[in-house]
């Protein structure tokens, strides 16, 4: 079967993915004559890199912009501004063939395996569809490839799953099919958007382990989007915490969990339920509730809820992400200076 051959444009970079000053604004409402007057700043000046073979966790509460970030990276949304560089090549260069080549390299796994699979297609059709679109292989080769992938994702024997429909599968099995489909073009980078949050506890660990194993075998990198810090701990080498469109803290996983610096990260970690009845939880130090980033005022996004805010935080723009300890980045005037 014709394996994917990297073309001459491929420049090796230290990073598989670089995101620079990424912005995605959505119109919040339209005024007279359809002029947009207000914008939701879903992703607002986000910068990070992911190394080859690394898994970066993007963690935050609902509405913080983590899924939008993922969708912009896989070119499902057009960024308002900013750069996305895949393995040294800017995403705009992939526009010539309608991102066909880009999608060979970058894939996404969605949260809900009940909605992300076409109910009228068999497992074979679902997994082989990308091969069809890209014109790779003949029927026999595609069958072989699909069988191989089913084996890899633990749906064995492949012959008993290949011709089934999604409704005949459990949630965990469906998510395995979705993973197989994402892998069929041998991507180098995968955005996984809460791939296990809809799954049952006893099934979830299996899918988490599968994703770690596949990352190793296929030498892939992940952007792992989740609201669950405990899951991120197991899936990611580094974690970025997002709040209202901004990354407020970024560090290695254990460092972030043990020495959180940003007041939002601290509050989040205090609030996470712990599966231990003897564990004494503290009180998260945070005020009010989360708002929507519609035309946010030019100040720290966390200002309204921050326990350590000062006058400066209200006057100046959102603080930049600064390195406060080796490889530990925080965006907060009060702790970074």
């Amino acid at each position, binding site marked *: 079967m014709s394996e994917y051959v990297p073309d001459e444009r491929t420049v090796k970079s230290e990073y598989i993915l670089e995101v620079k000053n990424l912005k995605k604004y959505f119109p919040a409402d339209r005024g007279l004559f359809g002029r947009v007057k207000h914008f939701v700043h879903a992703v607002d000046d986000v910068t990070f890199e992911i190394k080859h073979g690394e898994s970066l966790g993007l963690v935050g*509460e*609902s509405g913080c912009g983590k899924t939008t970030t993922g969708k912009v990276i896989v070119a499902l949304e057009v960024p308002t501004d900013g750069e996305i560089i895949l393995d040294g090549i800017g995403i705009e260069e992939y526009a010539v063939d309608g991102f066909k080549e880009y999608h060979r390299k970058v894939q996404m796994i969605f949260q809900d395996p009940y909605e992300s699979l076409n109910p009228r297609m068999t497992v074979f059709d679902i997994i082989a569809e990308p091969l069809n679109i890209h014109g790779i292989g003949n029927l026999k080769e595609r069958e072989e490839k699909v069988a191989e992938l089913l084996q890899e994702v633990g749906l064995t024997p492949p012959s008993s799953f290949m011709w089934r429909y999604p409704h005949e599968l*459990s949630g*965990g*099995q469906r998510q395995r099919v979705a993973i197989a489909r994402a892998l069929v073009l041998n991507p180098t980078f995968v955005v996984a958007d809460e791939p296990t949050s809809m799954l*049952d*506890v*006893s*099934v*979830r*660990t*299996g899918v*988490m*382990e599968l994703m770690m194993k596949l990352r190793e075998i296929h030498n892939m990198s992940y952007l792992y989007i989740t*609201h*669950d*810090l*405990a*899951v991120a*701990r*197991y899936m990611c080498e580094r974690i970025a915490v997002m709040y209202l469109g901004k990354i407020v803290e970024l560090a290695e996983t*254990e460092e972030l*969990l043990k020495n959180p610096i940003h007041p939002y990260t601290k*509050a*989040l*970690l*205090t*609030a*996470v*339920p*712990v*599966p*231990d*009845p*003897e*564990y004494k*939880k503290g009180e*998260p130090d*945070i005020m009010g*509730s*989360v708002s929507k980033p519609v035309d946010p005022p030019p100040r720290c996004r966390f200002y309204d809820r921050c326990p350590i805010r000062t006058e400066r935080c209200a006057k100046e723009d959102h603080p930049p992400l600064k390195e406060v300890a080796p490889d530990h980045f925080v965006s907060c005037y009060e702790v970074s200076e």
Partner: protein
Amino acid sequence: MPVLSVRDLVMHYKTKMGYVKAVDGISFDLNAGESLGIVGESGCGKTSVSMTILRLLPDNAEFRGGHVYFNDGSGEVDLVTLPEDEMRKYRWKGISMIFQAAMNSLNPVYRVGDQIVEAILNHYPDTTIDEARKKVAELFELVGLDPKRMDQYPHQYSGGMKQRAVIALALSCDPKVIIADEPTTALDVIVQDKILKEMKKIQKKLNMAMIYISHDIAVIAEVSDKIAVMYAGKFVELADSITIFKRPRHPYTFGLMSSFPSITGEKKKLFTIPGEPPNLLNPPKGCRFAPRCFNATEKCRREDPPFLEIEPDHYLACWNPVKREGEEK
């Protein structure tokens, strides 16, 4: 004297393909001021247990037997024997419920306060509207809502506030028992943390009995005095929460506890329970967990283990439990 005593509860759903054995012999006691967590995966029947207790079942549900003894201090009543109009008096007033996705259970076209007033007037017809409104204002204070918001509509509330309003609604008729089915699943962690702490406080203050139902063992760990682990329509283990977490005996309990990631402590390798939960149309013979169990024997695949008290207040349904250190078996 327990306020709620459930014995051998059995309820099956009739479907075209046969009977779904969703509740298959559930027994437990619940005392005033005590909280019981029922933990299990989706489809294990945990919600069906609460619906059977409250007799809020869909048309295809078949009640097959068992007893629900309720005692609010004025004598024991078996709720399953009551005619429907009698039963209605016990819902909300005796046992009330916070439903899954509760935030959507408020009527969007009525003011939030009015919905709670209506519930009070329904169950206490002698109350005047002013009295009821005063009571609602107190309830709002209790659950951490500004009483000024009584005359607002649900869409003017945030998710967390709606959840608080639903808790106020559940408390409106002074129930002895509240069943909370995934009360915080749709909420973000910081809001969830606040609501759970609030519920615990209210429970202690009013000396109510609570049943928390959730798939999330971390949430259950936080709020429950004792925990029932449910698998495929049955309780497999029931004990105080520390025993369940620190010294589980059922292999399924052990698996659940060891497969749950945590942000605290050392990063341990997570345990994977092989396979998937069974279809309750045709549950496996013998112990329903046997096909996925690392301890299963021939006997487990043949005979259904009884749910027995193996030490005071520790119930277990297993032929071959996980050994404890320093114990033979």
